[in-house]
């Protein structure tokens, strides 16, 4: 079907161009007009009427083919939902309705008018008059026949009395002349001419009667008939049997036939001819009334059909022309909707549709320019955003931005790193919700909430409780405003100043230690030497009763000096800047060595090791880490000194901290745990719960851990049912594994 349709469309397309169809339509319209004119000329239409009918019938077929081709094309487009086909169908239906209705009305009334118009040509009175005149004429002729018959009878009697043929010829000549016959003939029974007399002397042959008439006369019948002859004239032909009465009864009856031809008098002949012509013409017209109506109706139908077909085709053509710019607009709009702003439609007319198409082109041009500008601005904005992101990403400070509804809008990587929270997951989340999910950030949230509610800006220190201890943030808040100076959001910039504070504190303690070492340690040696000299010089010189006092005093001085020296050395140790001597260290083995050392000393304490077998050697300062472990185990042992079933649990594990892998060393005891009041300051110098402690052990542990890039956390722990509700103090030391350690 589609192949046929395609072939038909391709075949007919050259013939379906508007110019061709308009030309053909014009030709057929002229043919239709000619047919109409020819149909109106009843007398003369014969020459062209039939040809014009055929031409118009062919025209209708041709137009029908064009129309069907166009309709099939339209239906195919409609089925394929081609853009504009639906609108075109509506237009065509509308146009066809607007065309068909008036044409049908005109056709109906024209047909009625034609029928009644043709009928009006005929008048019953005229018809009756003609009929009556015809009857009168026939009556007159019948009356004339009787007179002719009487004459013929008399003529026949005279012929019977003739003796021979010359007499008969002479007699016929006399009768013809006397009665003004055109011709008088005598035939024998067999139809052979006996004698004849004609008014035309040169006429050689008589005007023979019909065989049927002759037979009638031969049987004794009289034939009298009126005959039309040339030039509308009429003549009587009488056949009268001439019967010899003497032979009437025999088979050899002598019968002759007398034929008399007498023209109707010229006056009567003209009248008769005129009457015949009038009657004949009227009958002819009356008879042709029905064919004439049919002819007119056929002409009218052809004209109507042709006009209708041309109108429908023109409706199709006009619809296509009308829909074309709308279709172009629809296609253009669709292209624009699809993002193609380069579409420009051809302006084919200077009417409103042309103006519309021109406006569409202008609009698309402006839209394209606006889009180009928007894209350029967007690109510029993207570049600026990328630049800003780059700047923010490279900032060591954490940056957060919130909108007016306290919703987190942007952040940088440093913010996530400092806060230890994946802020990507909280973009678009409110500040309160963030704090609900990240309880460690509550102090920061409280501060920000207060600042945002008060609309204040400024700088403040905020301390967070993180897994690695206190985290000190220096938070600066700024209001985002635009031209209306109304707050549209806030920018929060913060820095982790924990290390800075620690460094400052360490530096201060280092300075204290250095001064102690310098100011205290230097006089200690002379004091001790002086005390020993006094003892050596005066011990034996003093009386026995005073000797003990001297001995105790000098010994006390020496011991206290030694104590002061140890204290000063410890401070020196703490104050000394840590310079790591890295080497590959097996942490598990190191722990086992330390534990073995303490196990020999602390017999009452039970050590429990839970070391990870997955640990490889990592690069550490072995002595420093050994000191860390010694300090931690010593602290734990001291805490368990008053406990009968003391237990120290040491464990190692691979743990990742802020995307960095490391070793987590955990030292737990089942003692009373840390004092809650001191737990925040446990790593500060001179913080100790022991009577003889220097308070530097944990501070040194922290310094060594931080020097390795790790951290140390002290806390109290409680284990569950499996360990019979064991609790105590625990210290976790996390040391990073460098990439070099992994490759090694």
């Amino acid at each position, binding site marked *: 079907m589609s192949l046929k349709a395609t072939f038909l469309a391709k075949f007919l397309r050259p013939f379906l161009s508007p110019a061709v169809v308009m030309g053909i339509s014009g030709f057929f319209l002229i043919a239709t007009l000619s047919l109409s004119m020819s149909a109106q000329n009843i007398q003369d239409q014969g020459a062209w009427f*039939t040809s014009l009918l055929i031409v118009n019938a062919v025209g209708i077929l041709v137009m029908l083919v064009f129309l069907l081709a166009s309709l099939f094309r339209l239906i195919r487009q409609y089925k394929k939902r081609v853009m504009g086909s639906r609108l075109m169908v509506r237009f065509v239906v509308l146009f066809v309705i607007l065309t068909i209705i008036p044409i049908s009305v005109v056709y109906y009334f024209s047909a009625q008018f034609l029928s009644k118009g043709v009928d009006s040509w005929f008048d019953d009175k005229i018809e009756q008059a003609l009929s009556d005149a015809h009857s009168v004429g026939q009556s007159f002729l019948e009356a004339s026949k009787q007179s002719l018959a009487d004459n013929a009878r008399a003529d026949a009697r005279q012929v019977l009395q003739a003796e021979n043929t010359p007499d008969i010829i002479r007699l016929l000549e006399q009768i013809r002349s006397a009665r003004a016959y055109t011709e008088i003939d005598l035939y024998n029974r067999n139809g052979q001419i006996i004698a004849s007399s004609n008014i035309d002397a040169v006429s050689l042959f008589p005007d023979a009667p019909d065989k049927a008439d002759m037979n009638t006369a031969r049987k004794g019948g009289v034939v009298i008939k009126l005959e039309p002859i040339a030039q509308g004239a009429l003549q009587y032909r009488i056949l009268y049997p001439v019967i010899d009465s003497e032979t009437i009864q025999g088979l050899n009856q002598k019968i002759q036939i007398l034929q008399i031809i007498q023209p109707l008098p010229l006056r009567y002949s003209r009248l008769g001819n005129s009457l015949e012509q009038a009657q004949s013409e009227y009958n002819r017209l009356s008879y042709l009334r029905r064919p004439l109506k049919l002819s007119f109706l056929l002409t009218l139908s052809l004209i109507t059909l042709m006009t209708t077909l041309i109108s429908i085709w023109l409706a199709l053509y006009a619809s296509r022309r009308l829909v074309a710019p709308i279709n172009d607009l629809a296609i253009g709009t669709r292209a624009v909707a699809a993002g193609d702003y380069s579409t420009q439609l051809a302006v084919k007319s200077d009417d409103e549709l042309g103006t519309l198409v021109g406006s569409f082109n202008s609009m698309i041009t402006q839209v394209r320019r606006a889009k180009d500008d928007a894209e350029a601005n967007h690109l510029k904005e993207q570049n600026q955003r990328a630049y800003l992101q780059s700047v923010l990403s490279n900032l060591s400070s954490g940056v957060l931005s919130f909108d007016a509804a306290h919703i987190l809008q942007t952040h940088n990587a440093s913010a996530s790193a400092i806060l230890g929270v994946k802020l990507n997951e909280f973009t678009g989340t409110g500040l309160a919700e963030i704090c609900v999910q990240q309880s460690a950030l509550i102090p920061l949230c409280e501060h920000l909430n207060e600042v945002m509610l008060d609309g204040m800006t400024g700088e403040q220190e905020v301390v967070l409780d993180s897994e690695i201890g206190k985290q000190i943030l220096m938070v600066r808040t700024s209001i985002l405003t635009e031209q209306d100076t109304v707050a549209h959001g806030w920018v929060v910039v913060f820095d982790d100043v924990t290390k800075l504070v620690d460094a400052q504190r360490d530096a201060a303690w280092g300075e204290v230690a250095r001064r102690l070492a310098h100011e205290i340690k230097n006089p200690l040696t002379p004091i001790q030497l002086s005390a020993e000299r006094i003892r050596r010089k005066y011990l034996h010189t003093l009386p026995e009763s005073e000797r003990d006092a001297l001995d105790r005093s000098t010994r006390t001085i020496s011991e206290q000096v030694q104590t002061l020296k140890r204290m000063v050395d410890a401070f020196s140790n703490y104050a000394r800047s840590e310079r790591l001597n890295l080497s590959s260290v097996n942490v598990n083995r190191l722990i086992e060595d330390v534990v073995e050392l303490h196990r020999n000393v602390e017999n009452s304490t039970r050590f429990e090791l839970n070391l990870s077998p997955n640990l490889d050697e990592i690069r550490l300062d072995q002595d420093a880490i050994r000191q860390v472990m010694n300090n931690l185990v010593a602290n734990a042992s001291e805490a368990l000194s008053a406990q009968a079933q003391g237990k120290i649990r040491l464990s190692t594990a691979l743990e990742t901290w802020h995307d960095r892998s490391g070793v987590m060393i955990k030292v737990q005891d089942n003692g009373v745990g840390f004092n809650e009041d001191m737990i925040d300051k446990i790593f500060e110098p001179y913080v100790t719960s022991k009577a003889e402690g220097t308070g530097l052990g944990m501070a040194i542990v922290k310094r060594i851990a931080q020097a390795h890039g790790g951290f140390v956390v002290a806390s109290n722990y409680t284990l569950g049912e499996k360990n019979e509700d064991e609790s105590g103090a625990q210290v976790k030391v996390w040391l990073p594994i460098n990439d070099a350690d992994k490759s090694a």
Partner: protein
Amino acid sequence: MICFKPLRRLDKVARCFILSLFLFVPNAHAEGFNIVNANALFNQSSLAVDAQLDLSLSDAVEEALHNGISITLLMTLDLYKSRKYRWDERIARWPFRHHINYHSLSDRYVLTNHIEGESHSYASLVDLFNEIESFSFRSEILGETLPSSKHGYKLHLKIAIDKAALPAPLRVSSYIFPAWRVKSETHEWFIDN
């Protein structure tokens, strides 16, 4: 797709209409005129044809005749040169026309020979047709003008009402209504060289 149903129906109606145009062929059965027998004598110089016709008019034609319509009988004798692969070539045509009129005042039928111009009246159509049912034709005009033919010649004889001579309004009806299709079958002779 519901909206397409009327279009499909219209499509079917259009197809049926077109088909009906080709199916609507008027009854072409010949009636009224018959060529009972015919003989032809043909040589290079002369042609003689004798035919016996059987003529009668349909009621519709007789009605028209009685209403003053002149009926023309057209007898056509065609001579063709036979050709093998192409249509035969007509060499000569002899048309014979007889005009028949009805004279109402005398109640007679008038036959007029269009060549001789002579008129004769007859009491009935039977008498009139008896006069012309015997057809005889003699022609000496062929002579050397007759083109030679490898495949011989053909003669066609037929008689019919001359519709072109009818009044135009009636002519349309004569093309439409079968009662006016009064004509004989074409009688054909094959003449060898």
